[in-house]
């Protein structure tokens, strides 16, 4: 029976996404290929002081990204440090330095890892004038990077790969903002709060005291999902009834997370002039996603670990209105899109269910991945897949008519090494450095044994992949984890971006190699299969030992 509901749930989102795939994908194609600026965009370019018609070399494009991101981190850090003098701060004090750094780095990198508990740390102003701003622009940066890489494939003998400021502005103003306004209003209509009111103190029906937090939630909730950010307005994130009150808001939030990453494969196909190339990529995403969702539903429904068999169902850390299927679908979506929002506590999943969420991230966030980040991530994996296939048949590998030479392959290999190295080194240091180890055991862990180890693995996997979800029992607001995870989110975001932009630059310079009978087709089911194989192979080989110590060991005990 649970599979019936799971299949219907999957079918429903598949049908809705199929319906918006072409319109949204084509719309985004026009956004990034049009040479007309809207009037308010002209004002923005004038204020920033850039010429929107001027193309940028890959170096200039990357300088723009890094300059903008660095200033974003500083601004967000500062805003938190002066919270006590800002309006609507609800009496909260300035955020301490290490925590403010961690949060600033986390939101600028589209991670939204939350070492802080919003309920006891942040007032309204830091959330809507700081965090929500980054929810928009960090997502726009991701889209910009993906579009720049696609231009690398589409352009011929070009020194430039577009203009970062234009891509950033258009992604924000023409894609994220209009969808947020429309869907945000719908969320309010379904019960998500939107006010600047004081918290409400009530005497409850049974005569107890209750303090009910308020706030401008809907405006932040919508972009939190649409931009695959994931940072909750409240501590309980999308399981809080004010963020996600019912089955319809849950459905909408799942669709918001998926719509842009999925439709970008259409935009990609249009930009390179072969929509079938986009379908092949999308196929790999769908296969990985469907397999993961099936695995989670199975693990949660048929476990016989102590809690599940005792209570008669894996409902610890799940909301009644979502149950196993709609918690599983939300969790799979969130961990597969690098969003990191949660409508159930991943820490309280069965060992194997929780492992699947880790694996979704360990795949490198490509199924379908975050806004933009998912597309450039899977395109890099496609380059690797083409290279491996090329080795097998002894031909120079090509992808979309561009030769994959030593320089391109170096970029791609470094790209997929950054994340695993960050995760493995981070976890190892946490248990190897004496002071780190002590803070982990004394303060951070909420669970013992293998499950405690999983909490640390999940934390670094989430940070390095810019996901932001957690095995949330972990207390991450310690000097060690604030710093280490803050570094992990920055490395996990900007090293890959630098490599992708450099790759875009070197691809754009090339002319296109004509298609011959010997060219390997990359718009076929065979290629989709190869791509899935390569993605799974790389992460399985890298992470199997780590998983064996954590969730696998825990799962085998039961």
């Amino acid at each position, binding site marked *: 029976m649970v599979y019936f509901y799971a299949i219907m749930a999957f079918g*429903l989102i598949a049908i809705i996404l199929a319906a918006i795939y072409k319109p949204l994908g084509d719309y985004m194609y026009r956004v990034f290929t049009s040479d007309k600026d809207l009037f308010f965009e002209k004002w*923005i370019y004038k*204020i920033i*002081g850039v010429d929107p018609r001027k193309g940028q070399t890959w170096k200039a494009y990357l*300088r*723009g990204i890094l*300059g903008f991101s660095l*200033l974003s981190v500083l*601004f967000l850090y500062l805003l938190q440090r002066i919270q006590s003098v800002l309006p609507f701060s609800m009496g909260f004090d300035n955020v301490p330095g290490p925590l403010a750094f961690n949060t600033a780095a986390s939101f600028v990198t589209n991670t939204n890892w939350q070492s802080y508990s919003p*309920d006891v740390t942040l007032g309204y102003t830091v959330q809507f004038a700081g965090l*929500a*701003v980054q929810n*928009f*622009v960090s997502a726009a940066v991701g889209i910009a990077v993906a579009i720049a890489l696609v231009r690398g494939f589409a352009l011929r003998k070009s020194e430039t790969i577009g203009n970062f400021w234009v891509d950033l502005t258009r992604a924000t103003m023409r894609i994220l903002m209009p969808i*947020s*306004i429309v869907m945000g*209003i719908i969320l309010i*209509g379904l019960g998500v*709060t*939107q006010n*600047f009111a004081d918290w409400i103190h*009530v005497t*409850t*029906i*049974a005569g*107890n005291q*209750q*303090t*009910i*937090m308020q706030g*401008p939630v809907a405006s*932040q909730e919508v972009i939190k999902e649409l931009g695959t950010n994931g940072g909750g307005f409240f501590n*309980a994130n999308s*399981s809080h*009834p*004010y963020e996600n*009150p019912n*089955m319809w808001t*849950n459905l909408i939030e799942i669709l918001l997370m998926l719509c842009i990453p999925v439709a970008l494969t259409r935009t990609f196909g249009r930009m390179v002039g072969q929509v079938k190339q986009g379908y092949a990529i999308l196929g790999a995403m769908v296969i990985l996603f469907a397999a993961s969702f099936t695995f989670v539903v199975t693990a949660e429904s048929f*476990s016989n670990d102590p*809690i599940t068999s005792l*209570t*008669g169902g*894996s*409902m*610890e*850390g*799940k*909301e*009644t*209105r*979502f149950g196993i299927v*709609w918690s599983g679908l939300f969790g799979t979506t969130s961990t597969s899109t690098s969003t990191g929002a949660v*409508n159930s*506590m991943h*820490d*309280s*999943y069965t060992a194997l269910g929780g492992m699947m969420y880790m694996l979704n991230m360990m795949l490198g966030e490509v199924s379908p991945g975050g806004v933009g980040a998912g597309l450039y991530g899977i395109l890099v994996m496609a380059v690797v897949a083409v290279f491996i296939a090329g080795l097998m048949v002894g031909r120079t590998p090509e992808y979309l008519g561009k030769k994959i030479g030593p320089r391109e392959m170096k970029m791609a290999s470094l790209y997929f090494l950054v994340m695993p190295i960050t995760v493995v080194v981070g976890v190892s240091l946490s248990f190897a450095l004496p002071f780190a180890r002590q803070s982990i055991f004394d303060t951070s862990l909420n*669970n013992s044994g293998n*499950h405690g180890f999983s909490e640390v693995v999940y934390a670094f996997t989430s940070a390095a992949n810019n996901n932001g979800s957690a095995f949330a029992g972990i207390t991450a607001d310690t000097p060690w984890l604030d710093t280490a995870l803050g570094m992990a989110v920055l490395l996990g975001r900007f090293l890959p971006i630098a490599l992708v932009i450099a790759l875009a630059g070197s691809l754009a310079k090339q002319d296109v190699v004509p298609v011959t009978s010997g060219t390997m087709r990359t718009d076929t089911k065979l290629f989709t299969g190869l791509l899935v194989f390569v993605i799974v192979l790389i992460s399985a080989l890298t992470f199997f030992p780590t998983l064996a110590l954590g969730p696998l060991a825990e799962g085998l005990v039961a």
Partner: protein
Amino acid sequence: MKNAMALNMRSYWAGLKAVLVFTVIVIVYTFLMTGIGQLGMPDKANGSMVTNASGQVVGSSLIGQSFVDKDGNALPQYFQSRPSAASDPNLPEDQTDNVNYAANASSGTNKGHQDEDLIKSVTELRSEIAKREGVSVKQVPADATTSSSSGLDPNISPEYAAIQVRRVAKERGLTEEQVEQQVKKYTTGRGLGFVGEPVVNVVQLNLALDNLQ
């Protein structure tokens, strides 16, 4: 080298101005959305608060409450909510929170499925509920003994509501049919037959029962 420095400075300067421009835009967006919510759907935008018969605000229909006394004992005239890990952060340290459902500290237990404390508390709670409702432990559904993700779950499963009907009816001097009728009224089924899970809203149900009398 000097040239590179100048280029970097230029992108920082542009970056700073861009951060400020987008901050202003998002602030305008937030106020626009708040305006639309406040003018168009004030009840929803202001937290879906509910009032009792004498007009006092007693909570929100979306935010769960516990129906226990100060010592944490279940009040027999009310349908009971799920356990909650949301404990009021402003309580003095020596005071244990028996009430929970603190809507200023949303949280789950975040305990894994092998956790001994969790196993112990679930086992105890299960026999306590079975005893309270006069059913066998096998009839206690999963949501009755597990804490929700938010600690603010306003709902219970129809199964958990069903085993509580007899007790509530007896305590209130109502017939079981009368109580069942109210339960039915505050039950929401799956959307389109398969979206979400069927739930009973405990806050609205208990409020309605109070208003009957």
